[in-house]
Each structure stands twice: as structure tokens, then as C-alpha cells.
């Protein structure tokens, strides 16, 4: 035993070598652990990001590499364009409406999934599907569903009598319906994630609290709105924040479904930036438009993070 202990002690007292002091000293350890990620982010996000900002102050096009500084000209041009305001409005409408719907629907669905029932495994699988489907393909699936000729929604609506023989909504052709279609697809793809996150919050609430509230004579609704909802608020905020980010920066759904049409009525900032910068060749203009996305998102994120920190998410 003695030798054992000695060996043990010997090993432990081997003195502070370089590695040892490094692995123990938080002053060095934290920077060392952060360095790879920070380096990567600076090189592969920061650098291109600032390059883009630089572009937005120049007159660069896809066809040329020589560029001249033009100051705020691109931004002025964008702000004067009615399409910009339309795209901004659409982006906000799309984000707000889809998030509100997702919040309500995810809360209901999570509540329904939080109890045990037969076939839950399958139900959960089916519900998860939209989230794992590559969104470009999922959107094409919806394109097929919304097709102006073969729309299965319209066919079904007619078959069950909701739509009259002369009703044939053109989902992607009428501005309001087109917007609605895009919102539906956004809800469809983000709802599973939001549900899973909120479900996570629900399962983390101790049963005691529900019992206590029940004993206190609270009905199911009071129980939900006064006990459950406040308790899952922080995690709900997380779900909503992700939803906002995913919706706000998304290009694919609009790109596949309507390409901003009819006549720019469903244009969002991300698609308009793409069409201007890449299709139209006005790289500087495209960069300037997509830069508008960033401050808005940052503002939203900061508000959310502040809320969330108050509730100890971050």
C-alpha cells in the first residue's frame, strides 16, 4: 500500500510542466479552446462579410473585377426603389405571420404529443418529416401541390364540395394566395422543430406543479396559461428566434415557389438580393440589399437574447 500511495503521490506531484500549466491555467486554456472557432469565424465569416460590405459601397458587377467606390449610391438607389419597400414589407409579414401561426400550432401540437398514446412513435415520425426533408426538394413537392393545373388541393376541395365547379384558386398566381402559400410552406417546414423544442420545455416541467395547480382548483385552461405557458416561455423564445432566423434569411421557398412573382408581389429581401445581384449582375446592389437583412436580424436577436437571458437561457 505504501508504494502504491507513493506512486500515486509521485505521479501527482510531477510538477507543473508546460502542458500541465497550460491545461490548468484558465487564462491560457480559454483562449486556446476558443481560438480555432474564432479563427475560423473570422476567416470564413468575418472576412467575406466585410468584403461584401465593401462591395456594397462600390459599383462592382458580376462581369468585372475592377470597382470604384461610390459611397452610399447603392443604398440610395435601393431605398428609392418601391420593390425594396415591398420586399421588406413581405419579409416582415412572412416572418411575423408564420411565426405567430407556428407558435400557436406548435404549442397545441406539443401539448397533444406530451401525453402517451398508441402509435405515438409513428405520429412523431410523420410530424418530423418536413424538418429533415431537404427544403429545396420539399418546396418542389409543394410546387407540385400548388400547381395551377394539377393542384391536388383544388381537386380535393372540389371533390368534397368546398370549391364550386368554377372555383379554381391559382395558389401561386394571385398575390394574396401566393403569399399565403409561401407562409404555409414556411410553417410546414419549421413547425416540427418548434414543436420538438416546445415539447422539450413541456417535459421539463415537474408533474408536481401540475398537481399543485389542479389541487388549487385550476381548470385546464388556467393551468395552461398561468402555469405551463410562463414556465416554457424561455424555451419558446428559443424556438421563435430560430424560426425567425430560418424564415428571414430563407431564399429557397420563395425562389422555388414564386420567384418573387406575381409581379414582385411576393419578393422578399433574400430573393430580391439574389435576383439583383446574381441574375441581374448587379453584385454591388445585391450586396447592399442583403445587408439590410443583417441589422434587422441583429436587432431581433438582441431583443430575444435579452429576454432569454432574463429567463436564463443564455
Amino acid at each position: 500500500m505504501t508504494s502504491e500511495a507513493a506512486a500515486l503521490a509521485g505521479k501527482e506531484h510531477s510538477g507543473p510542466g508546460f502542458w500541465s500549466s497550460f491545461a490548468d491555467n484558465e487564462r491560457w486554456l480559454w483562449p486556446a479552446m476558443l481560438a480555432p472557432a474564432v479563427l475560423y469565424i473570422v476567416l470564413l465569416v468575418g472576412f467575406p462579410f466585410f468584403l461584401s460590405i465593401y462591395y456594397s459601397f462600390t459599383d462592382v458587377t458580376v462581369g468585372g473585377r475592377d470597382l470604384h467606390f461610390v459611397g452610399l449610391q447603392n443604398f440610395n438607389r435601393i431605398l428609392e426603389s418601391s420593390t425594396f419597400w415591398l420586399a421588406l414589407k413581405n419579409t416582415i409579414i412572412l416572418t411575423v405571420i408564420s411565426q405567430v401561426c407556428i407558435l400557436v400550432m406548435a404549442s397545441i401540437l406539443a401539448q397533444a404529443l406530451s401525453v402517451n398514446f398508441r402509435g405515438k412513435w409513428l405520429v412523431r415520425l410523420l410530424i418530423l418529416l418536413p424538418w429533415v426533408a431537404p427544403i429545396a426538394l420539399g418546396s418542389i413537392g409543394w410546387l407540385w401541390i400548388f400547381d395551377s393545373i394539377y393542384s391536388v388541393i383544388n381537386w380535393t376541395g372540389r371533390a368534397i364540395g368546398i370549391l364550386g365547379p368554377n372555383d379554381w384558386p391559382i395558389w401561386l398566381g394571385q398575390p394574396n394566395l401566393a403569399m399565403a402559400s409561401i407562409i404555409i410552406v414556411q410553417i410546414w417546414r419549421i413547425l416540427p422543430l418548434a414543436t420538438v423544442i416546445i415539447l422539450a420545455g413541456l417535459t421539463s416541467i415537474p408533474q408536481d406543479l401540475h398537481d399543485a395547480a389542479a389541487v388549487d382548483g385550476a381548470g385546464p385552461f388556467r393551468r395552461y396559461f398561468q402555469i405551463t405557458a410562463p414556465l416554457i416561455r424561455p424555451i419558446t423564445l428559443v424556438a421563435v428566434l430560430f424560426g425567425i432566423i430560418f424564415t428571414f434569411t430563407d431564399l429557397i421557398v420563395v425562389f422555388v415557389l414564386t420567384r418573387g412573382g406575381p409581379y414582385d408581389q411576393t419578393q422578399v429581401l433574400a430573393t430580391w438580393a439574389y435576383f439583383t445581384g446574381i441574375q441581374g449582375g448587379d453584385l454591388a446592389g445585391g450586396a447592399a440589399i442583403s445587408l439590410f437583412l443583417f441589422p434587422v436580424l441583429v436587432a431581433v436577436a438582441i431583443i430575444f437574447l435579452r429576454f432569454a437571458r432574463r429567463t436564463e437561457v443564455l
Partner: protein
Amino acid sequence: MTPFSARAGKAAQATGHAAILVFFVTFLAFPFAWMVITTFKTTQDLHNVANNPYLFNDPPTLDHLRTLFADTAFVQWLANTAMVGAAVVIITLALAIPAGYALSRMTGALGQSLGVGIFLTYLVPPTILFIPFARIIAALGLQDSLWSLVLVYPSFTVPFSIWLLMGFFKAIPRDIEDAAMIDGLSRFGAFLRVVMPISLAGILTSIIFTFTLVTQEFVYGVIFITASSNYTVSVGVPTFLVRGDVYFSGSMMGACLIASVPIAIIYNFFVDRFVAGFTGGAVK
């Protein structure tokens, strides 16, 4: 309450519950059901407006799947997606776990603002980045290589995972690391041998997220890769099955199904762990 009314109440509740589930399953899974039908319908059947779209008016056909597998590099695309996904997951974890941990343990304003700063980088939209990226990729000689995607995709998976893991690590009591250090590990050793295993659920969550984000990505994939054998599924399918004026709907729907359903099944096995991972940082 009489036993009868109690039973009636219960039945009503069960019916309501079932109705909610039916509604949501229909909404969320219908497009996939539709994909199944479309995949196996003949082109003539698909394009006949007089037909009931739900029925197989012609006998089901495997033609669309044959097109998918014989005329496109679909299997290769799946494999590419899996490989890129795996590589990005490894890079993401290697960068995000240490960074997330360090941020979760750094005291003071610096750690906090660094954390927020890293999260904000997640908000930089890809539309801004991809032109400069093209230059970087070219400078490195990676055009048309899957390595270009492996290099670029962490630009959105790393900030996200750092943020996710940071919340998760914060929920782990410091006592446990202190105990490990007293028990003979270094600060770093405590992280490796104690914190990491405890955080498995959180790490799993970030793996799932990373992988999903990779399979969803479209814009970079289109721009950096032109060789058909190097496409990922997200890019390959719409690129090859929309030819000029014609959509190969059947094959495309089949591709979407094949690409999604297996992943969904795998996720379903992990969803409880995933749920635990997500709440790690948010609800104690």
C-alpha cells in the same frame, strides 16, 4: 361528477386529442403521401386532369425510380451528402465544443460579448457571403470539390452549435468539474473526461442540427459544385430533374422521399435525447 359523465368527458377528450393529431399529421405529412403517389404514377396518369389524383388510374410504375437511379447519379449524391455531412459534423464539433465550453465558463463581460458576437455571425445571410466565398474557394483550388462545401458549411453550423452547446454546458454544475480536478484531472482533463460525457445529449443535438442544416443547404452547393458526380442531394435533384421546360416530377418526388424518410426514422429514435439536449441550456 357521475361515472357516466366522467366517462363521456374522457371520450370527448380522447376524440379532441385524436382530431388535433389527425389535423397536424395531415398537414405535415400530406406532401410526403403525395410524393409517394406521384412517384409511382405513370406520366400519362399524372398529366390527365380527368383522373382522380389519389388513385392509380394506370398500374403503378417504377419508371420514375428507374430514371432516378439509372439516369442520374442519385446514389452518389446521397453518399456525397452523407460524407459532407459527416465531415462537417466532425469539424463543427471539433471547433464548437471547446469554444462553447470556454464561453460557458468564462466569467466577465468578455465571455458574454464574445458569445453574443459568435451568435450574431449566424445571422449573416448566405446571400451576402457566397461571392467572396467563391474567391476563397478558388484561391484554395477547391472548386468542384466536396471539400469546398466541407470548408464553407461550418460557417453556419459552428456559430449555431457554439451557441447551443454553450447553453448546455452552462447547465452543468461547476462542482462536478471541480471534483474531477481534485480527483486528479487537469482543467482540460476534467472537460474531456467528465464534462463531455455528461453533455452527450447536447452534443447529439448539435450533431443532428448540423447534419440537417447541411442536407438543407442549397445556395453554396449550386455555386461551388458543377460536376454532377459531386452534387449533394439538395442540389443534384432539382438540377438534374428540372430540364429546361420539363419537370421530372415523379423522379423528383421519389428522390425527396428517399432522402428524407431514413433520416426522419433515425431522428425519431433520438428525438428524446435531442429534446433533452435542447432543454439543457434553457430549462433546468
